[in-house]
């Protein structure tokens, strides 16, 4: 079994604390390149900024297996300068505006501190308190006279924390996938050629993974991501049947989401692998949402694809929570699965 120790935690901390909003992934790309260059046979950065790394196996009839994790995170772009250190901004990726008021942010490559303030409650009319604050009315405030440039990105300023069995951090989606890919490269099985795509622009429409899949032209693909766990109590104590996934139950295998019907052969293969290896797993409740699978599956003449996610609570918010145990089990499930791949896997009909 592969383990999550101090080195793995430290790398994830570095990845999570980096600022890499969709379209501006440079900070994470730099960390990824440092990690994969010594390990991969070939590494390139493509036209969109994806980091594409290949690790060849040995022996005959090896399948080309693509592993994808996205480097980008949700955040903001400064869109207008109001003067006096105040900037209008727009959101990048699916952000619920209710997570924005009263938050600390980091702006630009120098991580300038800023805040998104709110009208004092003392000045509020009663009916205002029951309305959503519009992003249009919010400003990123760097302090009087603060200077940034229109076009710069910003994201939540919260820092990675390890607490008991959990990780509390921004951008667990999908730095945890990036960390898993790096770890798999360190323990690459020889029976396949590994094609690793550290993808850009997932949060705004799965754009990096599409061209990465075209480039690699793999036999099959796994998208490793992080998915919401809505495993909280219901307001009236009824059974929660909308949990999507639950923390602590292991990797979440996708069957269906808004963009993809995940390859049934690969779903069954992952399930069988988990059961054979004694690794806990759960099925993500079929429903909305989506991952890079949606783009990869329909690239070229079609690529059998499945998604596996580490569950986390509080998606696209300043602090998400994931379990180290789920991270470890996801890493091990994919590692075990890679080791069992034979050419017959995607030859049978679904």
């Amino acid at each position: 079994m592969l383990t999550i120790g101090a080195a793995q935690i430290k790398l994830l901390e570095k990845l999570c604390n980096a600022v890499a909003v969709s379209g501006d992934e440079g900070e994470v790309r730099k960390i990824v390149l440092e990690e994969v260059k010594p390990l991969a046979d070939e590494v390139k950065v493509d036209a969109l900024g994806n980091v594409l790394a290949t690790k060849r196996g040995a022996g005959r009839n090896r399948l080309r297996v693509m592993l994808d994790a996205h480097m980008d995170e949700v955040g903001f772009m400064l869109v207008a300068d109001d003067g006096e250190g105040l900037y209008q901004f727009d959101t990048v990726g699916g952000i619920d505006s209710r997570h924005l008021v009263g938050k600390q942010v980091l702006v630009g490559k120098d991580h300038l501190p800023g805040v998104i303030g709110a009208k004092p409650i003392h000045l509020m009319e009663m009916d205002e308190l029951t309305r959503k604050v519009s992003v249009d009315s919010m400003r990123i405030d760097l302090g009087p006279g603060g200077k940034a440039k229109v076009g710069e990105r910003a994201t939540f300023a919260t820092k990675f924390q390890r607490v008991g069995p959990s990780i509390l951090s921004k951008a667990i989606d999908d730095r945890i996938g990036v960390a898993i890919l790096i770890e798999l490269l360190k323990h690459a099985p020889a029976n396949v050629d590994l094609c690793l795509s550290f993808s850009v622009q997932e949060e705004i429409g799965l754009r990096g993974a599409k061209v990465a899949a075209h480039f690699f032209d793999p036999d099959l693909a796994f998208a490793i991501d992080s998915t919401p766990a809505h495993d909280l109590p219901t307001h009236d104590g009824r059974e929660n049947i909308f949990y999507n996934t639950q923390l602590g139950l292991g990797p979440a295998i996708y069957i269906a989401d808004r963009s993809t019907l995940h390859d049934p052969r690969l779903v069954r293969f992952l399930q069988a692998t988990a059961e054979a290896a004694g690794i806990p797993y759960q099925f993500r409740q079929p429903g909305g949402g989506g991952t890079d699978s949606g783009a990869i599956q329909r690239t070229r003449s079609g690529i059998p694809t499945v998604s596996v996610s580490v569950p986390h609570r509080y998606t696209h918010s300043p602090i998400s929570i994931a379990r180290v145990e789920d991270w470890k089990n996801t890493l091990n499930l994919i590692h075990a699965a890679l080791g069992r791949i034979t050419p017959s896997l995607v030859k049978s009909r679904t």
Partner: protein
Amino acid sequence: MTELLPFLKSLLSVSGLSAYEAPVARLIEAEWKPLTDEIHFSRLGSLHALKKGASTLRHSLRSQDNASLSRKTPRPSILIAAHMDGIGLIAKKVVDGFIYFAGVGGIDVRVLPGTPVLVHTASGDLPGVAAMPSLRLLPEGRGDGFLKTADLVVDTGLLPAQVSKRVRVGDVISFNTGPVEMSGESLSGHSIDNRASVAALTVALHELQSKSHSWDVWAAATTQEEVSLGGAATSAFQLKPSLAVAVDMTFGKGPGADGWESFPLGKGPTLGLGPNIHPFLHNRFKELAEKLEIPFAVEPMPRMSGTDAMALQIAAEGIPTMLLGIPARYMHTPVEMVALKDIQRAGRLLAEFIGALEADFIEKIVWE
């Protein structure tokens, strides 16, 4: 003197919810002790520090017709009150490891989702986040931004059994948004309301080390302002000052606050004017600020000021009261913002006012 910035940052790095002010009170006590002659805590936890004046003229307690009594009464004294308590949350119930909570003080529930917090348990502090459950788990109609405090949870990331073992109903929960230095020599964080005023009062105490003053000065870091003004009301009763000045935050001009009740950051403190304020004191402060060329703004307060000044004014038989304001943006959010310059100016103005108090000033305060 201790530098303002590191001292204020230390105050902003600890909790101190209303009635649970001890963590911040300890820091203030350590700072004030060497600056004052006597220090003690009130029955409701307010910190009182006395810096003795030089005057031998005693306060007549308005008994000008009784000279013998006036000789036995103490030296005239001025109380400068800045509340040290802050707003926050308090654990209400624990379900499956999720902590449901109520607010302490005036909190807009809309600033809470995604806010980092610390749960203060008997066995130490637990980091966590105030979190918004998925809409499908909430009552109907919560989709358009309408949330109630009761909808939200604090999640510590610990397992349910660990949470049950450590967290008790009634544990207080503070915002965990540490102070951040911003552009324009400003600072952002939680509880700037009203630790920035405590810092201003501290600046004044430092200035008074090298300034003679005839009056006794009571510096008070009061408790429970955000809930009941209970600290200021009882401190004023106990200390029976001849005059009182409350120092509190006022609305900083900026996003969400640009009307007449807001004041720009970095352009000086405000001088309250309204029924909670004695007009004679207001004018004295105004003339002094003009003379010293300390920038300020007059803050009209047509009704209640919403500060300790309300309680100070009506303590015992009534006390002539003044209010100094320091502008802060985004009041009662986890990211309040204040300009250091305004704190320094408020502190200097207080010290100058105290230094300029004539021994018989109290006799001069008259109506019309």
